């Protein structure tokens, strides 16, 4: 394992160094940034992006992309919100299976369009990004689900838990990361996702059921977006047809790409993705502290994505140079 580890760790160590340098720099100007309190703020900013990033990581590794995860998040959250509104007496935990199942159906829809019609996923999910968002407006009659409708137990999940008082949603997010790690690293499915993304032409020649794997990947992305949807309702206490999940895909793609997942498929680790999410969380937590208005946040995310892509590119080219050297 030593060589693989050392190569991959180098990339991950790089992100870790970026996080440390960033925090040190911010802490130098604003010492209160380096407290337990701000760690909690950072961690509270990350669970939704973390879950979305796990979904997107698997999709990107399979050499696809899913732009619709924000809309799937919004739609699932809305379905759950409507359920709570129409059936106030329903057992609150039922929201989880409903949200996850709703998201999975939407994700399966993406997967079917990609596989049956062999359409590029970027086009399919650009379409469903709009389609699913539009459906959210239709089912909600363009009205917001208000705070009073969301069960208190659900909202409490974003504040605490019996385990060291760490909010449930943070525990869930890390649990999903662990699950993704196991899938990616220790199941046949995971290895087949990597194989598919690494060489799509060779995959069927080596007995990989490309259609099946692709469908599973998109369905899983949908299910995780659905989970992120109900956690959104927990975290913010409302569901809005136009805001909920809007722009989520950009934060997620930024985090994943920063984490070293290649947009050309085949490459990416859960560890890197987690670190990418945390780096974005640090950036997001530091902005208000430094007095940078939230309105510039999007442009900063954009800049961070571009920088990460440039790093990714130079790392890849380094790899190619090494490769031709090896042939000689």
């Amino acid at each position: 394992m030593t060589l693989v580890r050392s190569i991959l760790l180098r990339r991950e160590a790089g992100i870790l160094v970026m996080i440390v340098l960033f925090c040190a720099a911010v802490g130098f100007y604003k010492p209160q940034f380096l407290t337990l309190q701000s760690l909690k703020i950072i961690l509270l900013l990350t669970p939704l992006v973390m879950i979305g990033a796990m979904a997107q990581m698997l999709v990107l590794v399979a050499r696809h992309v899913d732009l619709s995860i924000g809309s799937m998040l919004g739609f699932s959250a809305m379905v759950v919100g409507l359920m709570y509104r129409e059936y106030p007496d329903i057992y609150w935990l039922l929201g989880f299976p409903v949200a996850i199942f709703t998201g999975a159906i939407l994700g399966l829809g993406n997967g079917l369009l990609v596989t049956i019609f062999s359409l590029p996923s970027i086009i399919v999910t650009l379409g469903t990004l709009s389609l699913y968002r539009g459906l959210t407006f239709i089912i909600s009659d363009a009205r917001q689900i208000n705070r009073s409708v969301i069960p208190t137990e659900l909202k409490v999940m974003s504040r605490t838990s019996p385990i060291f008082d760490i909010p449930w949603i943070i525990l869930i997010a890390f649990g999903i990361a662990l699950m993704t790690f196991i899938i990616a690293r220790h199941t046949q499915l995971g290895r087949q996702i990597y194989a598919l993304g690494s060489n799509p032409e060779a995959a069927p020649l080596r007995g990989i059921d490309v259609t099946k794997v692709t469908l599973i990947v998109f369905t899983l992305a949908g299910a995780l977006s659905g989970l992120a949807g109900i956690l959104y309702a927990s975290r913010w206490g409302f569901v809005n047809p136009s805001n909920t999940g809007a722009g989520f895909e950009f934060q997620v793609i930024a985090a994943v790409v920063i984490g070293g997942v290649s947009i050309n498929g085949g490459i990416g680790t859960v560890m890197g993705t987690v670190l990418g999410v945390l780096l974005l969380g640090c950036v997001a937590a530091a902005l208000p502290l430094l007095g940078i208005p939230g309105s510039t946040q999007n442009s900063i995310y954009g800049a961070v994505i571009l920088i990460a892509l440039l790093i990714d590119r130079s790392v890849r080219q380094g790899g190619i140079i090494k490769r031709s050297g090896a042939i000689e």
Partner: protein
Amino acid sequence: MTKEKKILLEARGISKQFGGVKVLSDINLDLCTGEIHALLGENGAGKSTFAKILAGVHRPTRGQMKLNGESVDVSSPIVAQKLGIALIHQEPISFPDLSVAENIVMGRQVGGLFSRVPWTEIIEEARHYLDMLDVSIDVTRPMRGLSIANQQMVEIARSLASDSKLIIMDEPTAPLTPREVETLFKIARRLREEGRTIIFISHRLEEVRMLCDRVTIFRDGAHISTDTIDVISDDEIIKLMIGRTLKKYMRKHKAKVGEIAMEVSSLSLPGKFENISFSLRRGEIIGLGGLVGAGRTDVARALFGVSPAATGQITIGGVKAIIDKPADAIELGLAFVPEDRAGHGIFSTLSVEHNLTATIPDKIAPKGIISRKLEKSISSKAVDDLSVRLASLRQPIVELSGGNQQKTILARWLLTEPEILILDEPTRGIDIGVKAEFYDMIGDLAAMGRAILLISSELPELLSLCDRILVMSEGRVTAELPRESATQENIMQAAVPRSILAA
């Protein structure tokens, strides 16, 4: 070969058609256990197609196979793997981002998608098979970055891991150094001793002689002969490989040869070609013969500035020419009709007209704005000159037949009024009728005083059209034959690499 060998695989009446083109017809072949069987033939003889049919990559149009006396249907590479048939491609197919160990076991996993990956077992197994082959590769490293030789070793390990009885190696030695070739041979001989069967596809006769027990020759998709290697000479093999006669429709062409148009001296590009020198005169057609991979296309690409040579000199019209990019070459009056028409030749989404005028923006837009009238008159004349058959100038070029697409490409280059034409396999995949037209056209172009460099794998084409033929093998010119003394035999003699261990 003292004791009688058991038959492992019987192929009967294997035929294959791609679209309307017949690439294999009625191949019958028996393979014995514990033999290394060479498969020889010219480019396009059908060797690789046959190998792919055995390995389940392609399905035969007709024919049957028996493995150990039982009828088998090799419907996919996975079925082939289960039957113990492995194909090792020249450029191994692999998953560059996965570890070596995973590449060795991929395709043999047991259990469903959500079952556990047995990492320890996988790694141990991979080590075991690589140890058997005496190669030391860290099995946990990714495939990316492995040398071609090591990638082949991984492929061989993969075939051992699936306990293959029949291992097909498609030109395995082409990318290897002599030492790596030796290692490969040692392994191949050991596999033979274990009773496995190897099909060895190669162009290198000396290797075949060193390694193989029997040799089968294919020509134009048909089985020509199978012999024990001891009873057949190199010359006989070469004769059997070509064995074609000049076709009637080709006629020798004679244009007046004028002054030197281009002189090339000691052009080299490491790894591709070495020390290429020749001079090309106006009205002259020089043929560049040789096998695929001999470096002919690389020379053409270097002359045209696509991937320039590292050292050497090109002189055009008596002046030293610097060609770093295709635009330089076009400026100097060169034109290049590439081999890969779909990939490098046409703009597939554009109309015939726009394909024609793509290289002459200045002529159709004298004031910076494209004149429709000018564009139309120029392109319709170009189409008429070469009698391209088409419905309309605005038709998408992909709707034309291959031959007419090729004519369009040629017409496009003629619009730049080139002095020197480089044609790389210009008649590949073109109907016989259109081919004949092409030969006339090439002759006419030379008669008009243009210098032509013609790369072709079709020997009759070279023999009938060219004033001189340069034969390349492994990046070097191995023969220069004037038209009078060139024959199919002496071209092939020079084209087939013989001494690989000389280095």
